[in-house]
């Protein structure tokens, strides 16, 4: 049995799920009680819960898609845990990739991890790399909420821009490798360097995502697909890679940075 998906791993994952459900239920029950004391209409609270549940279904499915993406290298359980708590796609993928690169594994999450030490290193980096908000929240949130709400204005724009810049910086590192990155020369793996297929995946996923954004803006009735647009664009990009590979089998071999 694959050590990454043993019953022990699933037991650990289940404990995390139970913890998250317990915390959410605790605050939910407490809020409903307080809402009744304040005289908030029960119907209003029910509608809030229903609306929130419906709102969450599509993004949650897209998170499952990310678990699938990462599970090829990391097994199912670690991505499951990481995306159940704190996780977000950009964080988890870059953390896993960075940990594997640090160990000299150039293929990164493109191939399955078979060494337990590499696996636990990735688990440690992913976990410790993401806990900063939980470390600072107990110290600063109370003061922050009292003061910062009033002081948004210009700083809000600056913080929005800086957050966007940080995200773009991360994304560009991956995009750059798809355009000009070389593959693993030691292993001589075909298809892991920048080439026709990496550009096909990159360009088509960008194009599909922009197309979806345009369609949603143009036809408000399509608003429902908005939450699915990101994972759908990723899968369609992967589909285009397969299509090009099928129509032009030699494309698989064309890597300008092998």
């Amino acid at each position: 049995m694959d050590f990454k998906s043993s019953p022990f791993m699933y037991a650990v994952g289940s404990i995390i799920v139970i913890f998250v459900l317990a915390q959410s239920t605790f605050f939910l029950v407490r809020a409903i009680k307080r809402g009744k004391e304040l005289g908030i209409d029960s119907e209003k609270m029910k509608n809030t819960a229903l609306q929130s549940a419906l709102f969450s279904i599509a993004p949650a499915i897209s998170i499952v898609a990310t678990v699938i993406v990462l599970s090829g290298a990391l097994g199912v359980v670690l991505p499951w845990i990481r995306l159940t708590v704190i996780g977000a796609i950009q964080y988890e993928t870059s953390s896993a990739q960075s940990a594997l690169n640090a160990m000299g594994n150039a293929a990164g999450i493109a191939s399955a991890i078979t060494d337990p030490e590499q696996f636990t290193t990735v688990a440690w980096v992913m976990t410790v790399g993401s806990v900063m908000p939980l470390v600072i929240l107990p110290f600063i949130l109370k003061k922050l909420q009292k003061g910062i709400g009033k002081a948004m204005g210009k700083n809000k724009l600056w913080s929005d821009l800086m957050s966007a810049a940080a995200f773009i910086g991360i994304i560009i590192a991956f995009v750059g490798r798809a355009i000009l990155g070389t593959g693993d020369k030691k292993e001589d793996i075909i298809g892991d360097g920048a080439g026709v297929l990496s550009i096909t995946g990159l360009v088509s996923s960008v194009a599909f995502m922009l197309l979806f954004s345009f369609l949603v803006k143009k036809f408000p009735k399509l608003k429902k697909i908005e939450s699915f647009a990101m994972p759908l664009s990723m899968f369609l990009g992967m589909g285009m890679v397969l299509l090009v590979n099928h129509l032009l089998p030699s494309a698989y071999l064309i890597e300008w940075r092998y």
Partner: protein
Amino acid sequence: MKSYFDKTHTWGRIWTVAALVVFLLVPVAFSIHLNAWPKAEYFFKGLASVAIIFYPTGIIEVISYAPLLGAAGTYLSFVTGNIANLKLPCTMSALETSGYSVSSEEGEVISTIAVAVSSIVTTLIIAIGVLLMSVTGFVKEITSPDSPVYPAFQQILPCLFGAIGATYFYKHWKITIAPLVVVLAVLAFSGGTQVGVLIPISVAVALIVTHVMYKKGVFGKETESVRNE
């Protein structure tokens, strides 16, 4: 007597510290079970390149999102993650529909319900998805090198980051150009430079150039669009 807000912060702190301990125990449990501990050198090397971005980003996120999510909503959101694409839209729409302000006690109640329900639904859907994948063995089959879809899995990263990046690039094209040029220049000279090295370079360039452009008023006319995103 402590107010509802004060008690919320007390409980929020208790749950957050508990969450921190439980989450850190996960890699401990894996390492003990597999009898495989990471080498300090690899751990710190791997951590350094992500911490340099995620730690400051984590602080920026707390400062940016906390005023919008309410007290309990913030404590819950940062435990379960996926804030910008899930918790924040849920809270905003719940507050808009109910008509309460997040700074009022009623708004605090509504935002807590929205985030808590979202967390429960998301956690359950992910768990069900994982169960289905495990039972059907779907994952193993599709990712093997013999699989007809293997070439697509080899190109996961360009597809994933193309899809995530598209709207960022479109909305913030002024921020995108400089880091892209620098990263491509680095790769043109040293194509083997790994993502762990590229990320700090790319993020530093993006942050510096953005700050300079902000100071020069380049984003002045974009105030509305940025706020509406």
